[in-house]
């Protein structure tokens, strides 16, 4: 399964991934117009401070045994068989927030007005997820865990 990994050694916590994510999930998909949209788009990726000089960019981990899928009482969160990714079906979501309650990564956010949740969808309309492209230090990468370990020489 290909998903987004973050090399903490290169993450500066600058937040470019957050902005790129929000812009990608907006109506106009262009920064200067996005910020005057109402409602504003919601980022699904966060640059988080860990401790002294260490930061990480995190989002949905598309867990094998996803807590959100287990918790979802509407079957809106589900595992896509082909890709192994955790997907969200807006048609089924009732905004009960059980997934938010269950996600150990805090990766799910409320879209309050719509009573829906949003989370990383790996940017299905792009070749490369917006955050990966935006990362100025190339800390973020898309690939398998094996590929990630190789990139980090581990």
């Amino acid at each position, binding site marked *: 399964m290909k998903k987004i990994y973050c090399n903490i050694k290169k993450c500066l916590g*600058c*937040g*470019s991934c*957050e*902005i*790129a994510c*929000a*812009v990608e999930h907006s109506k106009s998909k262009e*920064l*200067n117009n996005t*910020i*005057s949209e109402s409602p*504003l*788009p*919601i*980022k699904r990726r966060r640059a988080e401070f860990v401790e002294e000089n260490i930061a990480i960019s995190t989002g949905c981990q598309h867990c094998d045994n996803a807590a959100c899928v287990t918790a979802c009482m509407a079957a809106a969160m589900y595992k896509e068989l082909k890709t192994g990714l955790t997907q969200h079906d807006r048609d089924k979501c009732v905004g009960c927030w059980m997934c938010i309650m269950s996600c150990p990564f805090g990766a799910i956010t409320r879209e309050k007005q719509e009573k829906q949740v949003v989370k990383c969808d790996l940017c299905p309309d792009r070749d490369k997820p917006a955050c990966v*492209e*935006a990362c*100025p230090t190339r800390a973020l990468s898309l690939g398998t865990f094996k590929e990630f370990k190789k990139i980090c020489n581990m």
Partner: protein
Amino acid sequence: MAKPTGNPINDQLLEIAAQNNISTIWDRFMEQEPHCGFGTLGVCCKICNLGPCRIDPFGEGAQKGACGADADTISARNLTRNTAAGAACHSDHGRDLARTLLELGKGIAKDYSIKDPEKLRRFAVEFGVKIENKSDLKIAEELGEAILKEFGQQEGELTLLKRAPKKQQEIWRKTNVSPRGIDIEVVQAMSRTHIGCDNEYKHVLEAAIRSSLVDGWGGSMIATELSDILFGSPQPIRAEINLGVLKEDEVNILLHGHEPLLSDIIVTASQDKEIQELVRKNGAKGINLSGICCTAAEVLMRHGVPMAGNFLQQELAIITGAVEAMIVDIQCIMPSLPEVAKHYHTKLISTSPKAKFAGMEHIEFHEKEAMATAKKILKIAIENYKNRNRSKVNIPKEKMTLVAGFTMENIFYNLGGSFRPSYRPLNDAIISGRIRGVAGVIGCDNPKNQSGMCHADMVRELIKNDVLVVQTGCSGGACAKAGLLTPEAAFKFAGEGLREICETVGIPPVLHTGSCVDNTRILTACCEMVKEGGIGNSIDELPVAGAAPEWMSEKAIAIGWYFVTSGIFVTIGSPLRVLGSKNVTNYICNEIEPIYGGKWAFEGDPIKAAHLMIAHIDKKREALKLKPIMCAKV
């Protein structure tokens, strides 16, 4: 390889660059994409060590910097510092010219002379210098002193503000932005934006406005007038533009930067017998001087020196392989040039005590020894001719003719065939509806927009709608390359009304008035148009508008501000970095219009922007109850 720019000359050379692994601005620009969103929106603050702080423009993360500054304060301070920096550039430019004038008057800078003594006298009177029974040099000395005094002035008002209509002067006084002196406003713009100082955004922006007025009615205007005095007031002149002006069999020397103090002397030095002899000795048929950026405009206007290219083309010029030397001074010079030049024989020479570049030979230029230094530099270039590698030479064929050198004094000698300059014919043309209004299209070129192509698109749209266009700087260069700066362009592209005027007078529909400091010629013209009467009693009533469709530099910000706060609507091709603050954006794009008569607009599409300007001009015409456009197009 960088994406094609759509400009065939540039793309041709970019391919060569790619083949030789030479990185150009287009490659590096792409590597910077996507640009940092926080910076773009103006919500990154690097002013103090509590930071660097950023505001989350989407409202979830931090909404205040560590000190408590919000997006309004942060973007206002950033914009003010940018404006001050731009104003500082033009102040220095004016200062250098004033110092040279003083040194000339004192007999120190002997290689310069007074080329327009009448203008010297007129200008001296404006500065309160008595001119009766005094020699040019004596007046020069006193004028130089008077001007320099204004740089250090602590109280009072700038002299040249008096050129503006009374209404503008009163607005500036009432809104507390009338500059007291040149340097003080730039210094205070810096000090006020220190951490924990000026924080209320409208007040912070007052400092920006002050800095900009110090540029437009101070440093830049002084520079324009002194350049005319020292190097000659331009007259309309034909010349050529684009990289095709480089010659296979002559020593190609590029003048790049901004100050005619350097470039003008080099033009004179190149005509020296000794130099010409050296050229022949080195096997070349002659010296081919050409320019890049504003210094190109200065020598183009006054000497017909061809313009090789715009800001974005400076690396491409070297990649032609045909340039023996590029001589640079200040501003808009890319530090990448040495990396590019190392693939060729081209020598890069920096000259300003204010600007050094790693990889460039530095031969410092001082006005006291101007000619000697100029000759020294020329000799290096000439002797480099034999090192040109013919196999690497790729001079594009394209070049275009243009007419440049319009100033607000000379243009209307032609209109109506008067003996003295008068704006009557222009005002009448506007009143009668032959000309809808006047637009200033200025500024840089930027890969963020269309690497220069926005200018031509916008200008064509404007002249199609009978708007007379005046231009400066790289914008003028871009339109010249597109063939718009020729009288023939009127037949091809202008609306009927405008075409009629251009035919009668023999001017292009697009008038190149010089370099970036010469944007003040447009300000002066506006003052004259008001004085002449019939199209508004103050600058904000005139049917005029401004645009910088591909702005790049901080100087452009300062210029934009001084037009806006002098009462002119200005549209720019990418937003100022304030969108992260709704309040600041709203203030500069809406709220200031009733205060100053001008405002900012952000529109990336050049055609849409042209129509914003046309709509604005129409609004002014309506308010003046002028006759409808004679040959109105849909």
